[in-house]
C-alpha cells in the first residue's frame, strides 16, 4: 500500500487477523450471535457497521479535545445513535425498500459494543485520518468473521446460501438430501454461533501461537 505509511497500513491490517475485533478483542459478539443465521443478514450488517464505524470514529476523533471526560460514554452513544437514526430516516424517505431490510439492524448497530469499543479505545486518542483507518479495519475484521459464521450457519442449518438451495431441496429430496442428508436445525439457534466463533478462535490460535494468552 503505497498510499499509506507502514503505521497507517497496520491500522487496517491488524484487525483483520491478529487483532480481530471478534476473535481477539471479543467485541461485537452479541450481534455475531443474533444475526448470523443467514448469509445475507451478515453481509448487510457488515456493510452497515463499516459505514457507522468509519464515520463515527472520525466524528468522535474530531470532537476528542472538547468532550468532557466525565460524560464521554454518553456523548459517544449520542453520536452513534444520531448517525444511525439520520441514515435510517433518509433511507426511509428515499430508499424505502432498502430501509425495510435494514430496519432490524438499526438498534443492533447502536448497541453494538464494537462501535463504542473503538470510540473509547482509539478515536478518543487519535486524529481523524488514523481513526478512520482504524474504524474501517475493525469493521472489515468484524465483517469477515460475521460472514464466515453466517456462511456455515446458513449452509449447514438451512442448506441454502443467500437463499439459493445449494444442497438440493429437503422436501422434494433432491441433491444431497436424496442420499439421506439432513439439515442441522441446531445450527440456526444462537448457541451454535458461539460454537462456530469458538472454532474460528481455536483454528486462529493454533496457527499463531503468539496469540495465546498466558494462563
Amino acid at each position, binding site marked *: 500500500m503505497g498510499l499509506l505509511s507502514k503505521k497507517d497500513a497496520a491500522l487496517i491490517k491488524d484487525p483483520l487477523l491478529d487483532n480481530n475485533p471478534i476473535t481477539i478483542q471479543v467485541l461485537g459478539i452479541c450481534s455475531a450471535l443474533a444475526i*448470523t443465521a443467514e448469509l445475507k443478514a451478515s453481509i448487510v450488517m457488515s456493510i452497515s457497521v463499516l459505514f457507522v464505524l468509519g464515520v463515527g470514529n472520525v466524528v468522535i476523533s474530531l470532537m476528542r479535545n472538547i468532550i468532557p471526560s466525565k460524560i464521554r460514554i454518553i456523548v459517544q452513544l449520542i453520536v452513534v445513535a444520531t448517525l444511525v437514526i439520520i441514515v435510517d430516516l*433518509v433511507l426511509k424517505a428515499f430508499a424505502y425498500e432498502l430501509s425495510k431490510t435494514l430496519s432490524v439492524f438499526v438498534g443492533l448497530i447502536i448497541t453494538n459494543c464494537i462501535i463504542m469499543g473503538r470510540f473509547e479505545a482509539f478515536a478518543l486518542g487519535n486524529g481523524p485520518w488514523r481513526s478512520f483507518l482504524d474504524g474501517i479495519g475493525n469493521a472489515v475484521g468484524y465483517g469477515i468473521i460475521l460472514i464466515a459464521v453466517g456462511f456455515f450457519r446458513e449452509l449447514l442449518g438451512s442448506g441454502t446460501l443467500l437463499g439459493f438451495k445449494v444442497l438440493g431441496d429437503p422436501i422434494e429430496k433432491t441433491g444431497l438430501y436424496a442420499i439421506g442428508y439432513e439439515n442441522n436445525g441446531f445450527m440456526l439457534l444462537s448457541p451454535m454461533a458461539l460454537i462456530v466463533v469458538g472454532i474460528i478462535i481455536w483454528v486462529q490460535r493454533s496457527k499463531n501461537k503468539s496469540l495465546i494468552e498466558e494462563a
Partner: protein
Amino acid sequence: MSKRTDSNSYTMIFAIVMVVIVGSLLAFLASSLKPAIKENERIEKQQNILYAMGVNENDESSATFVSTSVAGEEFAKYIKKQIVIEGDKISENDEAYLIDVKKQQANAKEGKTRKLPLFIGEKDGKTYYVAPIRGKGLWDAIWGYVSMDENMVVQGAYFDHKGETPGLGANIKQRYFMDDFYGEHLLTEAGVFKGITVAKGNNDPKNEDKTDYEVDAIAGATITGDGVSAMIKKDLALYVPYFKSLKK
C-alpha cells in the same frame, strides 16, 4: 492536573448544547422527511394488499410487489370496493386501507367499537376479500394481509414484521412460508371459525392437506410463528359475521 474539560460547569454546558443541537437536528430532519415517508408507507400498504390477492411480480422463489410507480393504478384497477365494518354497520370508504389497525385494536381494548376494514378485489373474474391483521412477534409488531374467498378459504397471504430475527422469525415474509397458507380453510365444515395454526411437526411439510387448519412452522421461530397463529385467529374471527351475512 486538571483540564478545562474536567470542570463541572463545562460538562453541564457541553451536555446542554449537545442535546439541543442533536435534538433540533433530528426533529428538523424527521419533520421535513415525514411527507415522503408517509407516502412510501401508503404505497406499501397498497402493494401489500395487492400482493395478498395475487397481484404481484413473483418469480419462482422471490416475493416481489408490483412496482411502486404503478401501485396506485393497479390498486384502483383491482380493488373494487373498500368497506368498513363497525358493529352491524357497513359503510363504503375509499380510504379504508389507511385505517390504522393498531389504533383500532387499542380502541377495542378500551371498549370502543373497532373499525374493521375489508378490501374487496376482483381478478380474473374471481372475488377476493382482503383483511388486515396485526399482532406480536418475538421482538416487536408483526402484521399482514390475508385474502379469502367468500367461504373464508385463504387465497393468499402477506406477512411482515418490524424486528424479528433475521434468518429465523424474519422468514415469515418468505415465499415458502406465505405460500403455505394458500387454500387453507379458516372455517370448519359446520361453519365454525377455527383459524390456522403455525404448527411444529404437523407431518405435512409440503402442505398438501388444506383442511388440517395447520401450516408447517419455521425452525427456530417458534414465538414468531405462535404470533402469526394468534393474529390470524384473533383478527380474522372478527370478520366471520360479515362472511356469514354474504351467504344470506
